[in-house]
């Protein structure tokens, strides 16, 4: 039993994550391009972040004391957009503008276009350094907020990540928490085939990080890990979250081919049915 989250809140988060997945399928289908598997796999973590973990104010995105969430692998932004819309940063209908001309919801997120995204990202490997620099600067000024950085596992292949890991370890950035989406897929195939990362936990530990491995679909584990990170004084913390790419849609789960493509309209209908009925377990209103 977690000391940090009640069962009824977990239930609520599960419902919200399911709604986020539905919105995600909708926006990607409308956009006709974008990434599907990664965002579905991170739906639970982003829901936990926006609806339980982060100190933030959707009506005042620039609130100075807010926690900062850097998204390093910008391509999974559609799930961030979905959860931001659900939180009240912008109207749900705006999700339909994803990847379209003039939209604030760029294919990869841009800081100056959409308040609340914190930074412009997409090219892999550069988010952790930005989050570390931000955390360093905030600590210089005695700020109390925390800095989070969500990353993919594939981008751990980039050298910039390890330069940043070394930096954060050296400077004991205990206000920085990284989250790696360990879903084992990248564009060309399975991560451990493309370029093995294991032993990933030991790598970060060797770089002077505190490392926690969790089931990235277990809200209790997500929340507990973040709380544990807050209690670690001497080190930054890396949460390696094992996730299922395409989570929530059986045909998609574990299939790397869904990394960079959106559902077609007929697929979307089937997927939405699956999400709304929790895989056929319940009857949904729309039926």
């Amino acid at each position: 039993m977690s000391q940090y989250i009640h069962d009824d809140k977990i239930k609520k988060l599960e419902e919200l994550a399911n709604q986020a997945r539905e919105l995600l399928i909708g926006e990607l289908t409308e956009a006709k391009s974008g990434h599907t598997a990664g965002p579905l796999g991170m739906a639970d973590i982003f829901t936990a972040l926006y609806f339980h973990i982060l100190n933030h104010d959707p009506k005042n995105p620039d609130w100075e004391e807010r926690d900062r969430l850097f998204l390093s692998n910008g391509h999974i932004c559609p799930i961030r957009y979905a959860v931001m819309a659900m939180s009240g940063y912008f109207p749900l209908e705006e999700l339909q503008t994803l990847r379209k001309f003039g939209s604030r919801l760029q294919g990869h997120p841009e800081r100056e276009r959409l308040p609340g995204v914190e930074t412009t990202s997409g090219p892999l490997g550069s988010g952790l350094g930005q989050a570390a620099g931000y955390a360093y600067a905030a600590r210089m000024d005695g700020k109390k907020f925390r800095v989070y950085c969500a990353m993919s596992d594939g981008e751990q292949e980039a050298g910039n990540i390890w330069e940043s890991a070394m930096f954060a370890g050296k400077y004991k950035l205990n206000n920085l928490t990284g989250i790696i989406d360990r879903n084992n897929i990248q564009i060309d195939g399975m991560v451990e085939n493309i370029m093995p990362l294991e032993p990933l936990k030991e790598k970060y530990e060797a770089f002077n990080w505190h490392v926690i491995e969790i089931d990235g679909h277990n809200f209790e584990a997500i929340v507990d890990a973040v709380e544990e990170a807050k209690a670690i004084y001497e080190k930054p913390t890396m949460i390696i979250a094992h996730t299922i790419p395409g989570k929530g849609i059986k045909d998609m789960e574990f299939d790397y081919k869904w990394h960079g493509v959106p559902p077609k309209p007929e697929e979307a209908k089937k997927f939405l049915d699956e999400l709304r009925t929790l895989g056929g377990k319940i009857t949904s209103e729309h039926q």
Partner: protein
Amino acid sequence: MINPDAKLVDNLSDKSKLEMAATRDGYGKGLVEAGEKDQRVVVLSADLTESTRSHWFAEKFPERFVQVGVAEQNMATVASGMANYGKIPFIASYAVFSPGRNNEQIRTTISLNNVPVKIGGAHAGISVGPDGATHQALEDIALMRVQPNMVVLVPCDAIEARKATAAAALSVNWRSKPTYIRFGREKSPVFTTGETPFEIGKAEIFRDPSIHSGQAADCVIIGCGMLLYNALIAAEELSKEGIECMVINSHTVKPLDEKTIIEAAQKTGAVVSVEEHQINGGLGSAVAETLSRNFPVPQEYIGVQNRFGESGEPDELIEIFGMGIASIKEAVKRAIARKK
């Protein structure tokens, strides 16, 4: 002939009497000045603290100095995060590494992100000398000037480098912009003074024969960086041969002071651009892009002609690679000969 408003040193042409100092010294002094006046200024180094002259700041403000090790990509991303928070970070390394190696990090996390990181490119140009081609940055101006939001400054001596560095952090109009400041390793003549006007975005007319004669000059030499001294000497020598040149210090390569440059082209009808950089993509290209749209005139390019550098003594390389005084004079004559 020297524009009195430029407040250059007296006896400019007697090199033996001029103080010699490296533009990197100006960067170091500018950092301290900026740090004294604005608490938000922080300085990062990638294991080149002394050779980028960042150590003066580090000694004075150790709590605002950050060592990142040999990791220029990380230095750019960490600085982006600090600037995003609200600091004004200066990052310096050799220009081949920053903005060379870390170019994409600068593009995405600094320029597109539009955060005020100040990038110091040290040991730029061929005058790095004996280190050879790997360490002679000859494409850094081009790399930086094609990025939207980025301001590009190329100071001509140590005093101007100090002003440019301080202004990048302190100028109300420019402190919030990503900025690249280029400087060199070698000592070079200090020919501007504390009173020489310096304003980002405004080119300065250093020499204008028409001030005395009322007659328009035959050619305008538009330069940046340390070679501007050679340009002034070349103009002086040409004057003795009866050829009169304006000389413009275009220290801000971006945004280019188009008005000053177009007016000079209109007055003189011939241009020579001078820079210690590839002739592709640098100041000369910026000038040509502007003039071709507004007032096309013959232009000759002093710079490195699409080849890599090599080891040698700095002065020797400047001559061999066609950036010496004699080469500038020849280029002026070629440009004038092409006038219709």
